[in-house]
């Protein structure tokens, strides 16, 4: 069903990608001078409206991100009013291409090729799920719970770009992390990010698709962990029509599709946790809005003597979205 929804957007996306890799857009501004500089504030002219018309929210922030990326400056060193900043012709062309892409709803994080997650900066790649602000809150909670534990063997199921595991490793030196990830692109990206951050000595990532009775890759089949974290796909299939274009067109829907009740993958993670958590070990999950009570019921009905529901937590928008389970 969402294929139909996707098609026109995909077309738009393709043309954007083409324009991203293609020749520089020519405008009256670029053609006015060869090697001359143009003030950023002049180059911005009109883009805010165009972005708004395309349905992009928080346009000022989007523009600032793009400007700092084009100028290759750290975001927090660029003044909000862009005073005295200038583009050369090449930078101007880049800037306009990127804005064009953003108008086509390409995610900002893909356009600039990196994103900040908690204290670390991660590379992003097309199709790999981009971590959300709520996930920062989730990881903050987990870190809070483990900061005084001596040693933690951690497993992440579905690590994507590596955001959760790597920020755990960054914050807590006593953590060793293993991750499994079904997408090859994401597996490679997570490993690349680990190396860029210098955290690869405590991080391993395996390309593996979790299935019933083959939850873990062969080489990890006897492993036990103290902690499992996961942000599994939890979008219900019938919610796909409400997704943002950035999500539908540019992100891998495998990283989102949680089946009819949104817990299809989470159920696999429950099973995996039963087999690979040490007794007393914890499973932390980031899920959708209505899931925590549902998980509580599932634990009572199906996991008696295997997993227990410890507690649920709210994200920064006061939505009950995180759960902690314990291996009996």
């Amino acid at each position: 069903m969402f294929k139909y929804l996707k098609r026109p957007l995909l077309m738009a996306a393709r043309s954007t990608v083409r324009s991203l890799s293609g020749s520089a857009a020519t405008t009256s501004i670029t053609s006015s001078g060869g090697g001359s500089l143009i003030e950023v504030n002049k180059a911005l002219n009109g883009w805010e409206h165009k972005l708004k018309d395309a349905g992009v929210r928080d346009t000022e922030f989007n523009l600032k991100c793009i400007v700092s990326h084009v100028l290759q400056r750290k975001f927090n060193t660029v003044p909000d009013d862009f005073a005295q900043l200038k583009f050369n012709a090449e930078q101007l062309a880049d800037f306009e291409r990127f804005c064009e892409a953003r108008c086509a709803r390409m995610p900002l994080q893909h356009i600039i090729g990196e994103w900040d997650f908690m204290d670390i900066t991660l590379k992003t790649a097309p199709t790999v799920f981009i971590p959300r602000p709520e996930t920062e809150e989730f990881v903050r909670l987990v870190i809070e719970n483990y900061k005084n534990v001596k040693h933690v063997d951690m497993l992440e199921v579905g690590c994507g770009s590596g955001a959760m595991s790597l920020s755990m490793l960054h914050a807590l030196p006593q953590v060793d992390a293993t991750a499994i990830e079904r997408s090859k692109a994401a597996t490679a990206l997570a490993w690349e990010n680990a190396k860029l951050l210098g955290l690869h000595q405590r991080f391993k990532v395996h390309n593996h698709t979790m299935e019933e009775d083959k939850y873990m890759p062969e080489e990890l089949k006897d492993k036990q962990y103290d902690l499992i974290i996961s942000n599994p796909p939890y979008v219900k299939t019938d919610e796909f029509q409400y997704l943002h274009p950035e999500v539908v067109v540019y992100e891998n829907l495998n990283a989102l599709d949680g089946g009819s009740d949104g817990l299809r993958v989470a159920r696999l993670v429950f099973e995996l946790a039963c087999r690979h958590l040490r007794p007393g070990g914890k499973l932390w999950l980031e899920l959708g809005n209505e899931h925590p009570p549902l998980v509580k019921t599932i634990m009572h009905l199906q996991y008696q003597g295997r997993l227990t529901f410890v507690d649920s937590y709210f994200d920064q928008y006061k939505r009950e979205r995180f759960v902690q389970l314990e291996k009996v």
Partner: protein
Amino acid sequence: MFIRKLLNVRSQCHLNLRRWASTDPLSFKNEKLQSYLESLRQEYYSLRVNAAGNNNSRLARLDGVVNALEKHRALQRNITSDEDMAAEKDEDMRALMQEENNVYTDLLQKQEDAMLKELLTLSDDKLYPALIFEVNAGAGGQEAMLFAHELYNMYISYFDYMGWQYEEFAHETTDIGGLRHANLLVYGTEAYQWLCYEAGVHRVQRVPATEKSGRIHTSTASIAVIPRPADAHVHIAERDLKIETKRASGAGGQHVNTTDSAVRIVHLPTGLAVEAQSERSQLKNRELAIKRLHAKLMQQQLESAEASTQATRKAQQGNQNRNEKIRTYNFVQDRVTDHRVQHGGTHHNLSGFLDGGQQLSGLIERLQLEHRQSKLVALLETWSADKN
């Protein structure tokens, strides 16, 4: 005690004190000083008797002075009195006594110096475990911001030089490498005793990098040092915070891809609002905003606490001199002049000074000593006035 350790390092201090001890109000023979010391001793022992834990910090501070005083008295008892000396018939014995007395007098003198040092540190303001250090560009546009950045670098090196931990919670730069303002939290129990002398307006005179026709400009940057006393605790309860982001209501999580990084926090009990949007990560912005809120609440609390104790407040204003320039950095003549030092406030080798090491430290040390001395003198005057 750390202050003692700190003072021992200072070599020049000793000389100054000797010269100084011979002038009237702080001479050891001075009766006021003697009775002041005796009152400190009595305070110390009465505190020790009913040490309920509340006054422990006062007790710890008195410890050094009283200890030195006791040693001094013990030494004094060893000196043979003139009468005894006169009563002694044996010539050799008398010579021996004289020799012994010379040794003790010497020791006594040293002990007096040590005691005076302790006494001087006692005249410091309260101890603060941390402080808020602010650098702000003043008059002079871009050039002032460039100078503010140089000052900022100087103090950062100085914090490292002194081994103080610091944490930055606001930093706004300009594109040509200048600094609009920066706020830091500096930790270190003695940090305030040193840095408070740096508060005020710093002036720079040079041909700025931005100047095309080669004229000399005068610009300013200011430093503010706000102490954070040990008993100032700001507790921010999660439920007191209203955290706002730009995101409209609607689905969250995997359903949308909003970057949603700017954060505004309202502290409900006080109505204070803070914002942060200088980072791309929302969580980082939230941490920044909470830090800012913390600093604001702290400042509020400090201001009200200071207002209640007028004496402290007056003393602080007296040495902070917010409205006047405290120091000039003249690049053309390669000199730094501190306007608070009466004689010899000028130092050359400006770049060495800006390294934030020994040169800066030496100047602060000098300001510190002068300030402590004048404070002790003032204290002695009011103290005896109270008694009479």
